[in-house]
């Protein structure tokens, strides 16, 4: 009670505004929103969009067989591919926006999008 007496009328207002700010901050910050994604294309058409914040694995069927793509720790990579030269598998983890791995023989591509895109496309 003695402590409450130290609040002046405006203090309640400021505290209430602070509480309102916190209450709105929780849903705003935690509802995902503009998270980065990995866009998987097959034959030039979007096959799937994976949220990089969720770890998962996906199998993409192509003309040669199955290309397996995995998301882990905000990165994405091609785990296995039936193509002869394995360029897209050997490219390893993609983590920056714009990076792309292309498995041309199987007509599958994986690209990281979202965030601030410093490049249109990155491949090595």
């Amino acid at each position, binding site marked *: 009670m003695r402590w409450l007496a*130290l*609040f*002046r009328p*405006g203090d309640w207002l*400021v*505290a209430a505004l*602070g*509480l309102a700010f916190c209450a709105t901050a929780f849903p705003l*910050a935690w509802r995902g929103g503009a998270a980065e994604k990995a866009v998987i294309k097959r034959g030039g058409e979007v096959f799937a969009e994976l949220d990089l914040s969720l770890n998962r694995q996906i199998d993409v069927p192509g003309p040669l067989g199955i290309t397996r793509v995995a998301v882990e720790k905000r990165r994405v990579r091609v785990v296995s591919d039936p193509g002869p030269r394995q360029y897209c598998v050997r490219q390893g983890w993609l983590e920056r926006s714009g990076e792309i791995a292309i498995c041309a023989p199987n007509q599958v591509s994986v690209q990281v999008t979202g*965030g601030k895109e410093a490049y249109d496309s990155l491949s090595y």
Partner: protein
Amino acid sequence: MTHSVIKLTTTPEDHRIARLAAAAIGLALIDAAIPLPLPGVKPGLSNIVTLIVLARYGWATAAWVSGLRVIAGGLLLGQFLSPGFFMSLTGAVLSLIVLAFAIRLPKRWFGPVSWSILAAFAHIGGQLLLARLWLIPHNGLFYLVPLFASAALAFGIINGLIAARLLAELPATETDASR
């Protein structure tokens, strides 16, 4: 043999700032010793001193005490000029800017609790901004905003209440009366 004597002349104002800064530094050390789950969440006990100084001696003295506390506290904790030091400095500068405005609010309605909450939000806001621009340049940082904001509100209210209580209980000394 001649002795060269270097004498610094100090004013009572200097003594007062030094005494108050020492209190703030002591609280900053206690602050650093309290274990908390999330880096960046701290009670900020030394801000109680800043608030009391602000109320008693005005903004300029509060700025001196706060600045000395950041520098000397950084030296004592071994983080002078490290990222932690700049986080602390940014927080202190932003809360002082906000306090300069907060103290102009009508005293009848807004007291130390209001100042403390506003300063706490300014503090964490500045630190988040610096962290986003420099230390962790990724928007994932903003996932932590709700936690930091809640901590700022809670500790802001607690520190403000302690400051208000101390201001009510500590009698104003004669030097204050001259102000």
